C-alpha cells in the first residue's frame, strides 16, 4: 500500500489539489464575505464561490491623482508647521492657509503641499522661494497624509452608501506619481462621481449648563454651519506633544447690516460661556448621555448629520481674543484634539465628505464603466472563448498523436491546471476579470506545450519498458520545462507590479499557472504517462 502511494504520489498530489479546488469553489464556508445589510445570496454570484471583477459584473473603476504640488525636504528652520504653512500661503495670491499644509517628518523628510488646484507649479515654486525656507525639490501630487485622508474619506462614503465590494486604494506609477484607484461594482460612472462629490451636513453647536433642563444641558444649534467655513485644513501634529489639531478659518466678511459668521460665532462663544476674558472652557462631555458631564464648562459640539461626533473646549489664548472681540478679524482657529487620529476624523467630518484635494478624473485620470448586462455578457462570452481555445488545443493534440492514451491525459491535465487556478481565485477571493481569463487561456497554452515536451521526450528513442528509462527521459524533459517556466515567470513579473490597467491579474494568474504546472500537474502527467506506457 505504502509503496503504491510512494510510487504515485505525484498523481495523488494532483488529485488533492483538484479536490481542494472543488472545496474552495463550492463549499459555503469559502463563500465571499457579505457586506453589512447584504444577504448571502447577494454576495455569491452564481453557483460557485467565484467573485467577478468589474468587467465581468458591471461597475465603475476610477483611477485619478489628487491635484496639488508638494515641496520635499523642506527645512523648517525650527518654525512650527503651521507657521511654515501660513508663511508659504502668504506668498500665494488667493490661496488661504488651509490649502497649504506643512508636515514635519524626521530626517529631512518634511514637506509642504499646496492643494489649491489653481496654483501652478511655477507659482508654488516662486512662493516657496519667496518664503525663504530651503527645500530639495517640487513634485506634483500631495503628501502621504492628504492621500491617506482622501482614501479614508472615500472609503467612508462607499461604506455609508452601502455599496458592497467597493474599494479604494493608492497605487503608484513608475514615474512615482500616486493615484487613487476606486472601484465600485454595480454603479454607473456618474453615480460614483456624484458620490465622491457629495457632502454631508456639518454644524458646530454649543452645549451650555442649564439647571432647568432635565440633564442640566441646553444646546444652541447651528452656531456655525459648514457654509460658514472658508477652509478646513488637514489634521496636523502639535509639536512636542502627542496632541494634534485641525486648522480652520471662518468667513469674517458679511454684506452691510449683517453679522459675519465669525462675529456671530465670537458672540455666541462669549454668550454661552465657552470663551471669557479669564480663559477658555474646560469641556467634559458625556457622549453616551448626550449631555454635559459633571462639573463641565460649556462645550463646542461637532455635529455631523445630526449626531454629535466630538465635543471640545477652548484654549485660553483663543478664548481671550474672542472675549475681547479681536478674533473675528482673522477668523482662524484650531480645533485641538488629544490624538492625531481624532484630528483626522474631525477634519474629515468637517469637510463632510469633501476631499482634502481635488480628484482630477478628467484631467489626468481614467475611468471605466461597464453596465451589469454588458458584464454578464462578457462573462458568458469569455467562457465560450476559453472553451473554444481549449477545443483548439485538444484538436491539435489529437491530430498530432492520434493516440488517446497520450492525448487524453494531456487535455485533462491542462484542464486540471485551470481548475486549480479557479479554486485558488475562489479561495483568496480574487475577482475574475477579462485579463484573468486571458491568463487562464495562456496557461492552457503553456501547459500543453510542456506536456508535449514530456510526451515527445519520453516516447522518443523507442519503447519505454523500464522505470529507469522512463525516469531518466522524464528528468531530461524537466530541465527544458523548468527553464521555459523560469523565462515565462521572469517575463511576466514586471506586469505583476507595474500599474498597467488590470493586467496585473493576467500576470499573476499566468505565473501561478506556470508554478502549479511545474510543481504539480506536469509531474503528475509524467506519472500517468509512465503507467500507461510501461504497464502492459
Amino acid at each position, binding site marked *: 500500500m505504502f509503496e503504491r502511494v510512494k510510487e504515485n504520489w505525484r498523481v495523488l498530489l494532483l488529485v488533492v489539489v483538484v479536490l481542494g479546488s472543488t472545496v474552495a469553489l463550492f463549499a459555503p464556508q469559502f463563500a465571499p464575505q457579505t457586506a453589512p445589510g447584504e444577504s448571502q445570496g447577494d454576495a455569491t454570484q452564481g453557483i460557485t464561490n467565484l467573485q467577478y471583477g468589474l468587467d465581468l459584473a458591471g461597475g465603475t473603476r476610477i483611477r485619478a491623482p489628487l491635484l496639488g504640488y508638494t515641496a520635499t525636504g523642506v527645512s523648517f528652520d525650527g518654525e512650527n508647521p503651521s507657521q511654515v504653512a501660513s508663511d508659504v500661503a502668504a506668498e500665494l495670491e488667493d490661496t488661504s492657509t488651509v490649502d497649504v499644509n506643512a508636515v514635519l517628518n524626521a530626517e529631512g523628510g518634511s514637506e509642504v503641499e499646496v492643494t489649491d488646484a489653481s496654483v501652478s507649479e511655477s507659482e508654488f515654486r516662486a512662493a516657496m522661494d519667496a518664503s525663504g525656507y530651503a527645500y530639495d525639490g517640487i513634485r506634483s501630487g500631495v503628501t502621504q497624509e492628504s492621500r491617506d485622508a482622501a482614501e479614508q474619506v472615500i472609503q467612508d462614503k462607499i461604506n455609508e452608501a452601502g455599496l458592497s465590494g467597493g474599494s479604494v486604494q493608492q497605487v503608484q506609477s513608475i514615474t512615482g506619481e500616486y493615484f487613487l484607484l476606486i472601484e465600485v461594482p454595480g454603479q454607473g460612472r456618474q453615480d460614483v462621481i456624484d458620490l465622491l462629490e457629495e457632502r454631508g451636513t456639518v454644524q458646530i453647536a454649543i452645549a451650555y449648563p442649564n439647571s432647568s433642563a432635565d440633564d442640566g444641558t441646553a444646546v444652541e444649534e447651528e452656531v456655525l454651519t459648514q457654509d460658514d467655513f472658508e477652509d478646513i485644513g488637514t489634521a496636523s501634529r502639535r509639536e512636542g506633544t502627542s496632541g494634534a489639531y485641525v486648522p480652520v478659518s471662518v468667513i469674517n466678511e458679511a454684506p452691510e447690516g449683517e453679522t459675519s459668521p465669525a462675529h456671530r460665532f465670537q458672540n455666541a462663544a462669549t454668550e454661552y460661556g465657552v470663551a471669557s476674558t479669564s480663559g477658555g472652557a474646560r469641556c467634559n462631555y458625556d457622549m453616551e448621555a448626550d449631555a454635559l458631564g459633571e462639573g463641565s464648562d460649556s462645550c463646542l459640539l461637532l455635529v455631523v448629520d445630526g449626531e454629535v461626533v466630538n465635543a471640545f473646549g477652548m484654549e485660553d489664548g483663543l478664548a481671550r481674543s474672542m472675549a475681547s472681540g479681536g478674533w473675528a478679524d482673522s477668523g482662524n482657529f484650531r480645533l485641538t484634539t488629544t490624538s492625531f487620529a481624532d484630528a483626522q476624523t474631525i477634519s474629515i467630518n468637517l469637510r463632510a465628505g469633501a476631499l482634502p484635494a481635488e480628484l482630477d478624473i478628467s484631467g489626468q485620470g481614467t475611468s471605466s464603466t461597464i*453596465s451589469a448586462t454588458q458584464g454578464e455578457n462578457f462573462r458568458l462570452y469569455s467562457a465560450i472563448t476559453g472553451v473554444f481555445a481549449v477545443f483548439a488545443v485538444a484538436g491539435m493534440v489529437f491530430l498530432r498523436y492520434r493516440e488517446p492514451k497520450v492525448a487524453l491525459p494531456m487535455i485533462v491535465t491542462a484542464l486540471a491546471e485551470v481548475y486549480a487556478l479557479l479554486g485558488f481565485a475562489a479561495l483568496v477571493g480574487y475577482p475574475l476579470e477579462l485579463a484573468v481569463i486571458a491568463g487562464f487561456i495562456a496557461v492552457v497554452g503553456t501547459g500543453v506545450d510542456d506536456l508535449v515536451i514530456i510526451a515527445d521526450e519520453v516516447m522518443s528513442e523507442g519503447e519505454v519498458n523500464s522505470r529507469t528509462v522512463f525516469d531518466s527521459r522524464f528528468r531530461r524533459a524537466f530541465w*527544458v520545462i523548468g527553464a521555459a517556466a523560469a523565462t515565462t515567470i521572469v517575463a511576466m*513579473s514586471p506586469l505583476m507590479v507595474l500599474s498597467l490597467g488590470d493586467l496585473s491579474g493576467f500576470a499573476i494568474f499566468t505565473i501561478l499557472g506556470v508554478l502549479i504546472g511545474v510543481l504539480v500537474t506536469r509531474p503528475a502527467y509524467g506519472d500517468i504517462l509512465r503507467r500507461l506506457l510501461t504497464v502492459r
Partner: protein
Amino acid sequence: MTAIEVPEVDYTEYSNRQLVLVPLAVLALAIVVIGGWYAVTGAPATLGLEFTGGVELRIADDGSGDVEERIETAFDREPDSIRSIPADDVYVVTFQAADDDPDGLASDLQDQADAAGLSTEAIDQVSASFASDTARTAIFGIGLAFLGMSVLVFALFRTFVPSIAVVASAFSDLVIPVAAMNLLGIEMTLGIVAALLMIIGYSVDSDILLNNSVLRRTGEFYESVNRAMRTGVTMTVTSMAAMIVMAVVATLFGIGLLRDIGIILAIGLCADLMNTYLLNVALLRWYKFEGVKR
C-alpha cells in the same frame, strides 16, 4: 491511421548564409516599417485609446435599425471611429482626447447619448497625461522583461553564441508582430503589451528546447535539430491554434482584450517558427561546426 508528423527539413542543402537571410530580411523589413511609422506618426505603432487618451462608449443596438445614423448625429464631436459588434448587439464608438477641452468629456458624451435615446453599456475614459504615463510604463515593463529573460538565458547556457541566438530570435519575435500590427491597422492597447510580454516567455520555449537538444544531449547535430523540431513545432502550432481561435471568437463578441492578445500571440508564434528553425538553427550550426574550433 498515422499521426500527423512534423516534416523533416534537410538543413544540409542550405548554407548558413541562406538560412539566415530570410529571417534577417523579415526583421529588417519589420524595423523599416516601425521606423517609418515612427518618422511619419511620431509613434512606433498606431496607439489605441489607452495610450493616447480619449473616450470609448459601448452603445446598445436596440434593434431599431438606425442606431448607426443616430450615433453619427448624437454627439457634438465627430466620433473617431464607430465599430459594430453584431454578436453582442453593440456599437463601439471612440473619441480621441481633445486637447482644447478634456474636462468632463465623458460625462458630456454620456449626456448626449442619453439625450439621443441611446443607452450606453460601458464608458471608458482615459486622460491624455495618464495615457502617456501608461505608455512609458509599458515600454519600461517590456524592456525589463526582455532584460530579465536575456540574463536568464545566458545563465542557463553559459555560452555566448547559443545564448545570443535565443535573445536575437526573441527580439525578432517582438519586433515582427509590432510591424504586422501597423500594416494590419491594429491599434496598440494594453492587451497587446500583455501579449508582447507573453511572447517573450512563450517564444523562448522552443529556442531553449532546440539549444538543449543540440548542446546538452548526445547525438548528431541534424538528428538533434530534427528531434527538437518535432516537439517544438507541435508546441508552437498548438499554441497558435489556441490563440487564433481565441482571436476569432473574441472578435465576434467584441472582447478587445482577448482579441488583441490572440492576434499578436499568433503572429509572434508564427515569427518564432521562422526565427527558431532558420536563424537559431543556422547560428547553432555555425557554433557547433566552426565556432567551437576557434
